[in-house]
């Protein structure tokens, strides 16, 4: 049984939390880029016509491209771009983020166009939820040596002598990830309920079905 001495905590936990901040950094960059591209794609799809069809095709491809494969593609097929590890992971998440923003954005634009401005605001909790999915997905960076939370956790685990010790460490990692994640999802649910109530007060017609939890 591993003894979790104070030195382990004083050494491992700060490194792990610092790694987790990299996960949030990656997710933040991916979301900003995803919002920019996704909003443009949503506008194009909303306008319809050839541009709308082209936009739908692009969104379809972006939705289908697996993040992990995109990351290796950026790393190996475009080596001269000179992106850092953090940026490679962030950019690899952009197709997912942009496709999600485009899908949610079209719904929001339709609501706005129909005059339901508050219903349109329901896009905000969905985007917040997507951010947390991006945080979790950014752990893919461990596969290319980015010093994010899971990479630091696995590095520490590799030095432990038994599976029991490793599992204890993994549980600590899951707990550390679950605190901001579950708090974030709870905040999203509260925001969604609040907006829903406000929207119902102002517009009696039924709200659109909430979007499913986005695919990682």
């Amino acid at each position, binding site marked *: 049984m591993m003894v979790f001495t104070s030195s382990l905590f004083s050494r491992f936990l700060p490194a792990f939390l610092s790694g987790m901040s990299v996960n949030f950094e990656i997710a933040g960059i991916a979301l900003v880029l995803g919002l920019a591209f996704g909003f443009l794609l949503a506008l194009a799809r909303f306008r319809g016509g050839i541009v709308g069809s082209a936009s739908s095709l692009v969104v379809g491809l972006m939705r289908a491209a697996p993040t992990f494969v995109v990351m290796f593609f950026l790393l190996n097929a475009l080596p001269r771009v000179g992106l850092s590890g953090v940026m490679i992971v962030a950019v690899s998440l952009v197709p997912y983020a942009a496709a999600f923003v485009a899908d949610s954005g079209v719904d929001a634009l339709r609501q706005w166009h129909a005059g339901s401005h508050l219903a349109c605001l329901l896009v905000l909790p969905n985007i917040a939820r997507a951010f947390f999915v991006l945080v979790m997905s950014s752990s893919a960076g461990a596969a290319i040596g980015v010093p994010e939370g899971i990479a630091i956790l696995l590095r520490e685990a590799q030095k432990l002598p038994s599976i029991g010790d490793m599992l204890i460490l993994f549980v600590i990692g899951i707990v550390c990830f679950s605190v901001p994640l579950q708090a974030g999802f709870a905040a999203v649910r509260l925001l969604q309920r609040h907006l829903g109530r406000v929207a119902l007060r102002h517009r009696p017609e039924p709200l659109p079905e909430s979007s499913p939890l986005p695919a*990682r």
Partner: protein
Amino acid sequence: MRRLVWILALCLIGAAPFSARADSSPDAALARLLDEARATAAAPGACTRPDRDQLISILCAGHLRVGVRDDYPLFGTRSGDTWQGYEIDVARAVAQRLGVAVDFTKVKPATRIPMLADNTIDLVIATMADNTQRESQARFIRPHYYQSQTVIVGPRDLSIKDDDVRGQTICVTIGNGSNAELVSRGARLMLFDDSTMLTEHLADQACMLAAQDDTFFAYYLNNPDFGGRFTEKFGFAEAPWGMGVALDHTDLLARALGLTSQIFNRDGVFLAAAKANHVGTRFLRQQQEVWSRPECNTDTGGTNPACVLPPSNPDLAATPFANGVVEFEAMVSRLTGIELTLPMLTIAPAWSLFLSGVVNSLLLIAGALVATLAFALLFGAAMAARPRLLRWTARGMTIALQSSPILLTLVIAASIIHVLLPYSSVLVLSAAIIALGLTNGANAGQAIAEAYWTLQDERGAAPSRQFELFLRALSRSATQIVAFLINAAKGTPIASFIGAPELLSALTDITSFSSGRATTYTLLLVFYTVVVIAVIWLCRRFQTFLERGGVLA
């Protein structure tokens, strides 16, 4: 008197074999060869004859032009006008034995053979492995002056039992000939362009293990800071290093250098230079023993297979259709200007890896879809069940799975399964299927349960109608179920992280020992995107089936 003549004759006959034995030593053969060459060089017009041997040119010039590395610590470095390192000392000793001065010229791996061919240099002593691929480009001097091997370097507190690296991630440089062996040992490779990145990433712990020539790591491991943290775990893939000369007009030069190399191995000249420069001496000690043996210490020892090492053979077998693929690559290049390289279709081991990668990827996707659906039903049923204990257990597991990044869930599943059963590809694929199924199935199951409870609130249901209500919940949560099925299919390439032999893993292995990285990863992206589009199409049909209440029929 007659008696005396007979005694003298007998003495001469008896001494003849000893005299012949002395004449067949490499020292005598070298001395004779150099004497004859000097005499030839001194003859009028010999130094301007177009077909003169390179040895004559060297003796005429009085200089030996040697191509050496200036960026390879311990072997060849330059500081201002000062050259130092093991290979520099070897070059100086060779020039001294030939009786000429030495001129150093900086070479790189890409330029060392062309510079021999265009007569810019006479000799290369520049970390060049003697292998069958290079035999058609340069004449290697045997016996060899060094032998490198690939070593695995990692933290001192990390133990590797029985050289077993299955499932371990090892940082390597692209194109290193030993990568194929690491792949065959079941290691996962992380690729880098430049070997200096290996030490950087070992230091910042982005790499837990790194593989590279021992000669490269020797310098860093001699550094107290680096050497205090990291150590060699084990070595493999030995490659002898040879001096090289041009293919043409070098018969005499190659013979002289071969004999010199024999003598230097036997007398410990190479060994002393290695010690002075702090490079490994294990190989040179072995060679000193070999070249001191009577059967090797002769002027023909350099051609005796029992004494001299053969070149290493890094050639990989070609596929039966490699020629057709090469023609196709050339045609694409001609028509479009795009440099298309398809190593997975031209190299036999790569083709085998590619085929198994495609099959395993499709199996993995199918398995992940089935597991997601099965776990979704299981979690959905548990979270919709009456007993609180069952409900809360399923809910707790769902929260834990939602809070664990998929990469971590995969590692946990693989670690647990490895403890229970011995490592195998099927086992890793199974672990990946279970992890992907659990993560996505738990989320989909939560959606099913939420739909179930909303239906329960709306309609109420007698205990006898709970199954029908559950089927209706499946129909209501069809969008969510399909979203997580698609998610599971998209997540399958992540399984490569735990060593699942799917396509991403296979192509990473292929590119580690071949060229065509850009083409390979582009094809990989196209493959997965097309497969996921197909999965989306199938899932949408499944969604329609669920929404129409197909399960209720």
